[in-house]
């Protein structure tokens, strides 16, 4: 089931709960894809000036969606629900999770329905598609992030024929094991979409 990251309200809120219930019951994963428009400006300070701000901003908008989903207890209530974060990057996954965990430790009385550390929900339920692939100067930094996210949770995506598509032959640094490459290019997607 496809949702977008920018909506009328943050994606974890009550009006969207019937969708998560239905998806879990049907055994379908939810994809949260960048873009969409709910009438809200695309940043928390209003409308930005440049298209590039929208492009980098997708990760911000996706973070809003994911934080809302975790903190409104969507994963707690739907243990079998799987979700894919699509086209908004994944480099921010560790830092958002660290911040969520730290805040949760001090503020968890406000969200008693969040029974486990947020990072656990994210690790258990969330898959990530790669396009646009993170491209740091030091490729080992990228591998560190993927280690955190999990080689079993990352799905290659190309977004061809968009102008910023990723070439499958260039997207991974050298030194990735055959098993991880198989998972990255094929097995994780087969598993997520129930085709295995």
């Amino acid at each position, binding site marked *: 089931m496809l949702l977008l990251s920018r909506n*009328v309200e943050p994606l974890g809120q009550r009006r969207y709960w019937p969708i998560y219930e239905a998806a879990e019951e049907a055994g379908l994963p939810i994809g949260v894809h960048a873009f*969409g*428009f*709910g*009438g809200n*400006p695309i940043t928390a300070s*209003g*409308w930005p*000036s*440049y298209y590039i701000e929208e492009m980098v901003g997708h990760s911000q908008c996706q973070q809003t969606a994911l934080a809302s989903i975790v903190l409104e207890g969507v994963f707690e209530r739907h243990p079998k629900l799987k979700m894919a974060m699509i086209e908004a990057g994944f480099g921010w996954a560790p830092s958002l999770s660290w911040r969520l965990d730290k805040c949760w430790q001090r503020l968890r009385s406000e969200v008693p329905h969040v029974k486990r550390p947020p990072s656990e929900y994210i690790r258990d339920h969330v898959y990530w598609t790669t396009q646009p692939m993170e491209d740091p100067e030091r490729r080992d930094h990228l591998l560190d992030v993927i280690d955190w996210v999990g080689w079993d949770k990352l799905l290659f995506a190309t977004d061809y024929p968009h102008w910023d598509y990723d070439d499958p032959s260039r997207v991974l640094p050298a030194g990735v094991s055959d098993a991880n490459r198989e998972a990255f290019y094929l097995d994780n997607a087969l598993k997520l979409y129930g085709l295995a």
Partner: protein
Amino acid sequence: MTRHVIATVNELPPGTRKFLTIGERPIAVFNIKGEFFGLLNRCPHQGAALCEGPLIGLAQSSDPGEIEYTKLGEIIRCPWHGWEFDIRTGQSYCDPKRFRAKAYPVNVEPGASVVKGPYVAETIAVSVESDYVVVDL
């Protein structure tokens, strides 16, 4: 053209909308800051219940950093694919020439003239004391 009385003005305060069927047409009537508008509740794109979408504004920009957000609450955004239509005319913003939502004129009539007719008011009891929301089909 028939004129249909669909509510008293008090039943449809500003910021609210009423869904109804006239003949076989699903229609929604909106009160936007005291003005009334009617739209066919069927998106010209793929037939979604257009009128269940949020009312948003129109964002336009002539230059980077110059943003105008106008027509607040006057743009209806279809819940299915986000297409935006002007509530006053049904005009779409994605392709004004090819796509338009069907708009119906809606006016307020005083009870005195409504009582006289000719109006179709099957379910509303009309009296001279109230004002009525009237849709022209």
